[in-house]
């Protein structure tokens, strides 16, 4: 039997940045095909290509021998490709029946009315085939993540689904819910559906998958039979990048404790998080997406209220839940989502750069345009922002330049502690290196820096010390000298006991 899906030399570039290249793989009907790789390895790009959300820059996809019209969601749907995303793209206000059928509802009475009995029966059948019961009349937002996921899968298989793509389906499921999901997946497999299973949970993959494809740095590294593999094999395959390119260079001795976090808790996102960052030190924070790292950062920054615990700067406690107090004390946060949280995109580069220091630049209540221009020019130069002038709208800049803008905005405020959340996500290699250099320079100047990153080489290369978070708490701390990708991954991966590694 020929494979169901065949990709040939798929490639995607954004501008000059290559997100993915040379992907040639195949998936068989009734196969569970796992896809692994670090964050940013290109897994999402592949998913988006298959589902038609992004257009290909190169290559072809064929489904059951027929070429697929790429870059079109309806075409992918018609070909029987469905995706269950990590974040729900469903209708939170609507119930299970609606979510399964909206857009292609069974009808009666000449197409006027919903055929509720049929919907109900059909939904029941679909959900039961997944080992789930139908709960009618409850809005999706009232259901558990696992139930929502089952409904999403039910929607996917309510039409003739040939390939079901599951993107990190177990990220927020309990052990029992996971088992239910696996059972459902096995049923689908038995029914001949091909499954592309993306996960960080290596044990799951070993237990479920028939074959495993490994992605690294935008390339398809290899595809192997899962049989006979163990976790270490997988980790080795995922990590393979040259860590040395991020040489820390001159390491100054860290100074006094700047940022001190004690017992910080914001249930259910994270619990009892304690750590310190010293002046001149770069502390990396590794972990999987959803481990609670960004939430810790937002709470330190005062954007969220903690349930318990304290944050102090130079020994002085910060007022909880008060961004302005945190900023005044010298905390700066470069958020993960620079487009929506980091910048005001429709405003100009100059305006964005002075946003944090607006009042202090004012003279007699008025904005001093010359002082603002001076700050903007200085930061643009310091950050090497590539823009025609400070009057260019931030939206028009590339991702890397936008990120420099966010960092520049905070440096203008002369912070004591800089927290960077995924500072290089979606940024091309050149800009990436510039940002690394910058972070190192700033640390050398005495800034206490906390870098949150899912990019292992990045964390390893930049940090003096690495904290690893798993499921809302710190699972371990590694000194620079002892840190290896394998150790970090081992600490970050769930369902495993922490290795005996400590600071």
């Amino acid at each position, binding site marked *: 039997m020929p494979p169901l899906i065949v990709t040939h030399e798929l490639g995607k570039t954004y501008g000059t940045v290559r997100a993915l290249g040379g992907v040639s793989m195949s998936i068989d009907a009734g196969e569970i095909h796992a896809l692994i790789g670090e964050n940013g390895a290109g897994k999402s790009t592949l998913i988006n290509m298959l589902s038609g959300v992004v257009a290909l820059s190169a290559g072809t996809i064929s489904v059951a021998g027929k070429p697929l019209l790429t870059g079109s969601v309806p075409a992918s749907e018609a070909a029987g490709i469905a995706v269950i995303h990590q974040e729900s793209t469903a209708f939170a206000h609507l119930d299970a029946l609606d979510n399964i059928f909206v857009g292609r509802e069974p009808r009666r009475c000449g197409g006027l009315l919903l055929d509720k009995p049929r919907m109900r029966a059909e939904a029941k059948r679909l959900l039961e085939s997944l080992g789930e019961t139908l709960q009618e009349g409850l809005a999706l937002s009232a259901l558990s993540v696992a139930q929502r996921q089952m409904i999403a899968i039910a929607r996917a298989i309510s039409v003739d689904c040939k390939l079901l793509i599951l993107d990190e389906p177990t990220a927020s499921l309990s052990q029992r819910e996971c088992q239910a999901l696996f059972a459902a997946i096995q049923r689908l497999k038995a029914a001949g559906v091909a499954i592309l299973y993306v996960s960080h949970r290596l044990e799951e993959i070993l237990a479920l998958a028939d074959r495993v494809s490994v992605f690294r740095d935008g390339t398809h590294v290899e595809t192997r039979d899962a049989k006979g593999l163990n976790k270490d094999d997988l980790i080795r395959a995922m990590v393979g990048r040259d860590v040395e390119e991020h040489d820390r260079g001159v390491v100054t001795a860290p100074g006094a404790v700047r940022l001190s976090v004690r017992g910080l808790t914001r249930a259910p996102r994270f619990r009892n998080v304690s750590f310190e960052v010293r002046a001149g030190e770069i502390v990396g924070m590794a972990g999987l997406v959803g481990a609670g790292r960004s939430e810790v950062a937002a709470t330190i*920054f005062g*954007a969220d209220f903690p349930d318990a615990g304290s944050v102090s700067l130079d020994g002085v406690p910060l007022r909880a839940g008060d*961004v*302005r107090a945190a*900023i*005044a004390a010298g905390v700066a*946060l470069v*958020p993960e989502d620079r487009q*929506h*949280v*980091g*910048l*005001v*995109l*429709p*405003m*100009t580069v100059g*305006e964005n750069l*002075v*946003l*944090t220091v*607006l*009042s202090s*630049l*004012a003279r007699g*209540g*008025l*904005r001093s*345009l010359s002082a603002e221009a001076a700050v903007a020019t200085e930061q643009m130069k310091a950050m090497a922002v590539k*823009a*025609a*002038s*400070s*009057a*260019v*709208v931030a939206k028009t800049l590339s991702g890397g330049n936008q990120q420099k803008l966010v960092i520049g*905005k905070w440096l203008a*405020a002369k912070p004591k502690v800089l927290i960077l959340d995924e500072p290089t996500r979606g940024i091309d290699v050149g800009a990436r290196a510039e940002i690394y250099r910058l972070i190192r320079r700033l640390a050398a100047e005495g800034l206490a820096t906390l870098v949150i990153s899912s990019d292992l080489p990045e964390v390893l290369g930049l940090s003096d010390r690495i904290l690893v978070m798993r499921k809302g708490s710190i699972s371990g701390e590694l000194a620079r000298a002892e840190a290896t990708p394998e150790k970090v991954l081992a600490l970050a991966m769930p369902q495993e006991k922490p290795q005996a590694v400590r600071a």
Partner: protein
Amino acid sequence: MKSSGPNTNESWWRQYNYWHETVLAMLIVGLLLSASVLSPSFTTVKTQVGLSSDMWELALLALPMTLIIITAGIDLSIGSIMALSAVVLGMTFEAGANPWVAAMCGIMAGTACGVFNGLTVAKLKVHPLIVTLATLAAFRGIAEGISLGRPISGFPASFTELGTGTFGGVPIPGLIFGVLALLFAIALARTPFGLSIYAIGHNPLASRYSGLPVARITVAVYALAGTVAGLAAAIYVARRNTAKADIGTGLELDVITAVVLGGTSIFGGSGRILGTLLGVLAIHQTRKFVGWYWDREELNFIVVGVLLIAAVLLNRLFDKKTK
């Protein structure tokens, strides 16, 4: 803020970001030109000054409304705040207070109403449309309740000068408006407060993450609207020598129309005082000319309604072009 930098790849007219204002100005000039042909007496200075008398409250209220709409909010209650301020002014005066003291009380009452709106929007996070829809009824209701619907008049000439007097040929309300418009324009274009308003309108989350006092600024703009409504009430009372609970009825829609006509986006983030000035002027001139030439009040509604929709459609058309 459609600022765009000098970019050599783009022709000059793409960078020119005063298109909306230019169109409006041309529209007004066109109207005045046609008017001067059809009815020359309309375009004389004397007529224009005379006809301006009932423009000032609308013009004044359009200033803070511009700020509110730039923050992506809206205030439907300003007409009612005006009524409540006027009634407070009148009743304080009736109780024997100096009219200027009474006016201060009225303005304070207006500010208090604005603060209530602002706190409900900023702290309780209720949609401003809903908040002010409710206070639209409540504030006017309070005004009716405390005044029992009576008019209060008999203000001394020294006070009514505020509404009817002129200074160097310019009506005093016009001078007050001029000063305030200048202050608002400076505040919007040249103060941290102004830039923060744009930032909040575009992206409240990023504003908060940049350390801008989002809640405080939101309360401030609604409070400012209340204060200006109080001032407008004082001017109205002085001009018509009457304080009553029905003044400013329906004014909020006129004000919103003027601001939106002036190019402020109802979704927030963009808008300028200059545009608002032209918006006010466009509505005022259109109305007055229709009234002057035809003496048919009902035509005004049609003309203004069509003008509003046409202006927004036009702006859309042109927006696509620059993008």
